[in-house]
């Protein structure tokens, strides 16, 4: 490749990378998750974040913040706490890659300037390069295997272009080792060197040199075209000292490329014939450029997003006002960058308090990793459009809402997240967004229509098969009329009900709290009459505080509160079928 082309491609990929990064980072200040995020502009967010971070770093708490940041972002403290092998592997990958970039890719600017007489074929660079490459490769393998083993039964969300980027990285490493191995074994490379530096040498000495290089430097000569001496003579050694040794150390310390070279020895000639070195070099370089250009659009943007997230986390925990939440500008930014910082490692899922529920309800949106992606989507107007057009999108969005509202806010996911996402806060904002998008919790959507309207919808359903059955396996008490045979409508349940008591001063005009529609005793009566559909849409069913006064005090031992709970589960299922009808009307 000509230097000019190389330069052009380098600049182009750097430019693409920079633009891509700028675009993605801008999104962190633009994307609005949570209704309160609307009240800060992007510019306010930038200023706010800078101000907050500056305030935390400049105060006496500054060292603590920096310390926490270094521990978490550089030394991966949280990851070590949760999964030490993955942390170690990640450290290997990052350290190895960074040092490779510095010492190898940027060798002319870094290593060559720092170390006089630097040659990549000298020690310790042969060893170091291989070590770093092995670290990255080994680390990658461990990470892939560990991620595969640690996945929960419900899988993990898709990572943007992770496979593509990992492949590119793999190509870079593979071509790097292969190129080095090829160069070690290649007779043509040897010829080029001897033509340039030992052109006037004596043929016998050359033959001896070849013997030395065949034995100690792994060159795979073709004895039909090259004369290789039987022994290494003193003349050969002298020639080596004069012409080669200054720039070439024995490559045996390149512990990956050296054995690879041995393996490639039989085909060294063929590879030379097809100019394998040129192909490998081009592939190597192009893969680097491609990776660079694509980086902002893949999951590996987390190399920027994760440290940023951890910085904000360190500020939140140890900064200027650790007891209080961060200013809205910082919080909104933190939410927006969460999807980019999230590496879909799945640590949040492993200890999730509702993991069993997720499996049993077959709803992956209960798990934090999936909920994160869904939260991001809930914030976008595209979702609302999709919901209107596409029944499957709507159904999926509703499942996401179910998952979001079943979260118990236990905070375990937040504690485990290695990139310092404030998931607890994100879930709150996400739920607000879901409500704004018309996907509220069941307690809310059931209350959007009066009970009689729901009952009419249920009665008017043409195909009764779509309705979830009101069956005894789900609602053993509510479905069994014997439960109510002793109900004498004494109204004790209503009299001891705090919901009815405190509904006295509700506001009939308010949507959220208009007062009681059916008292507990009326609900029981409807069930007693075998008319559950008339009660399912009642507000009382969801306003019920499950305080169990009704059940405790019922003189006939009717389990009123237990029945209310059954009705909730029933209403969620049965009314779901007519919910779309309701929304259209």
């Amino acid at each position, binding site marked *: 490749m000509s230097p000019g082309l190389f330069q052009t491609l380098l600049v182009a990929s750097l430019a693409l990378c920079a633009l891509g990064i700028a675009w993605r980072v801008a999104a962190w200040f633009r994307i609005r998750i949570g209704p309160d995020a609307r009240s800060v502009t992007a510019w306010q967010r930038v200023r706010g974040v800078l101000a907050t971070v500056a305030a935390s770093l400049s105060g006496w708490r500054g060292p603590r913040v920096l310390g926490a940041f270094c521990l978490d972002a550089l030394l991966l403290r949280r990851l070590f706490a949760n999964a030490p092998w993955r942390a170690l592997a990640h450290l290997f990958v990052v350290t190895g890659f960074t040092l490779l970039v510095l010492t190898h890719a940027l060798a002319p600017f870094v290593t060559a300037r720092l170390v006089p007489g630097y040659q990549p074929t000298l020690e310790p660079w042969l060893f170091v390069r291989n070590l770093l490459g092995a670290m990255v490769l080994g680390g990658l393998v461990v990470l892939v295997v560990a991620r595969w083993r640690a996945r929960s039964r419900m899988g993990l969300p898709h990572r943007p272009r992770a496979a593509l980027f990992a492949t590119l990285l793999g190509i870079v490493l593979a071509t790097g080792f292969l190129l080095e191995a090829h160069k070690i074994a290649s007779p043509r490379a040897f010829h080029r060197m001897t033509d340039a530096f030992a052109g006037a040498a004596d043929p016998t000495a050359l033959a001896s040199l070849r013997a030395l290089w065949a034995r100690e430097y792994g060159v795979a000569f073709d004895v039909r075209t090259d004369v290789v001496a039987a022994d290494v003579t003193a003349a050969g050694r002298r020639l080596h000292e004069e012409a080669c040794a200054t720039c070439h150390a024995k490559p045996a310390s390149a512990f990956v490329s050296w054995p690879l070279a041995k393996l490639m020895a039989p085909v060294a000639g063929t590879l030379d014939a097809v100019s394998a070195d040129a192909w490998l070099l081009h592939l190597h370089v192009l893969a680097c450029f491609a990776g660079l250009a694509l980086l902002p659009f893949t999951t590996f943007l987390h190399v920027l997003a994760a440290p940023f997230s951890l910085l904000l986390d360190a500020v939140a925990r140890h900064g200027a006002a650790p007891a209080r939440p961060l200013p809205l500008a910082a919080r909104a930014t933190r939410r927006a960058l969460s999807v980019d910082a999230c590496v879909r490692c799945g640590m949040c899922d492993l200890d999730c308090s509702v993991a069993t529920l997720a499996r049993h309800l077959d709803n992956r949106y209960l798990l934090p990793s999936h909920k994160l992606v869904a939260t991001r989507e809930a914030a976008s107007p595209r979702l609302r459009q999709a919901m209107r057009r596409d029944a499957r999108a709507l159904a999926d969005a509703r499942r996401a809402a179910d998952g979001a509202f079943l979260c118990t806010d236990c905070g375990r996911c937040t504690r485990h997240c290695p990139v310092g996402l404030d998931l607890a806060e994100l879930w709150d904002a996400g739920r607000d967004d879901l409500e704004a998008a018309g996907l509220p919790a069941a307690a809310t959507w059931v209350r959007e229509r009066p009970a009689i309207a729901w009952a009419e919808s249920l009665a008017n359903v043409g195909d009764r098969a779509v309705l979830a059955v009101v069956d005894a396996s789900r609602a053993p008490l509510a479905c069994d009329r014997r439960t109510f045979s002793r109900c004498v409508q004494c109204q004790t349940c209503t009299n001891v009900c705090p919901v009815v008591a405190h509904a*006295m001063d509700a506001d009939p005009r308010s949507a959220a709290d208009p007062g009681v529609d059916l008292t507990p005793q009326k609900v029981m009566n409807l069930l007693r009459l075998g008319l559950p559909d008339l009660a399912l849409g009642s507000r009382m069913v969801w306003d019920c505080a499950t305080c169990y006064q009704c059940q405790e005090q019922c003189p006939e031992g009717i389990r009123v509160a237990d029945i209310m709970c059954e009705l909730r589960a029933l209403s969620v299922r049965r009314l779901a079928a007519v919910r779309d009808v309701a929304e259209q009307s």
Partner: protein
Amino acid sequence: MSTAHSERFDVAVIGAGLAGMAAALFARERGLSCIQVGGSGGILFASGLLDLMGVHPVVERRTWSDPFAALAALAQDEPDHPLARVDAASIRAAFESFVAALATTGLPYAPLGERSRSVLTSLGTIKTTFGVPRSMAAGADALDARSPCLLVDFRGLREFSARQIVATLAGGWPGLTHRRIEFPASGAAAELYAAHLARSLETRAVREQVIGLVKPLIGDARAVGFPAVLGLAHSADVHAAFEAGLGVPVFEIPTMPTSVPGLRLQGALEASVAGRGVRRIRRTEVRGLAFAANDDEATLELGDDPNGRRGECVLARAVVLATGRFSGRGLVADRDRIREPILGLPVMQPPSREDWHRRDFHDPAGHAIHRAGLTVDHAWRPLDGTGTPAWPRLVAVGSILAKQDWIRSKCGSGLAIATAWAAIHHLARELRAPASG
């Protein structure tokens, strides 16, 4: 089931209605250790008034203002009636003890006199009763004197209409007036419930608002009557506050069940029983009751415990059966006969189902089914099929007893309290109880 490590009590009371509660209280008073099983939901239907003997003979619908005279007549006419078998002094002592217990748990009664009191009800009728809660006493006084009174009701409290009461009394009480007020912070509700108003009035601000609304309406009235909503757990304080605030005697008018006085009575009795160290198990049925061969003790097998484990067994030296009648499942009416479900004791009953009821629901003589129940000997022990006591220390008290029609005689509370007293008296002697407890 191993009884080796079971708890052992002097008395096990099965049933937590008025009779069961009375039995438990009296047992503790005599130093007997006591366990009580059963739900107290039946008490919620009480009005708070304690009837002793209101109507006799039932068929004549003759009411009595002197309950003890009524009891004397009863003893003559129906010597087998349970109340006829308890002497007047014991009945008095029983009532005094009962209301004393209630007084200590926040539900004071007016002092018990020699005669019954007449009390205005929420239907506008006049009821004769013996024990009147203090919060209702001024009403009985006002009724006796026909003094000018203001009755206040609340918009939305559908079960109580002051206007209807006055109308029903027609000319019977000329000085009675009525006004309706708006209960504070109740704008949203089309219908109000007494218990909620009662709870609300325990908050000072609400109380003061209501007092402020009523005070200007008093005029010439010498007493003010309200539906029974003056407080729930702290009704004595609320009542006193109303009297202080309005400056005239204030009385409550008993309302239909489930009423606030019923809730108060239940709360006060549960608290009394708890306060006296009765081991109390609610909402668990008695699965089995067996008696040891040597007649020494009974084993009660209780229903499953809250952890879902097999019910515990409890030992008792004596058992009080106070399980009530049909609504509390003390008696069960099958298709063809009435039975007692725990021990299968013989139930005195009409020969066949056709004889259970008379044709006319309002027949003055009442219906034979209501006189069915357990027959007991002089020591209140239910008899088995051979006519001998089923067990030497098993007694039956309260409405489960035969030969009484407590609804028509208006003697429910008296029946419960007096028979409990008498039965415990016998048991205490039987057990020769030291002051263990």
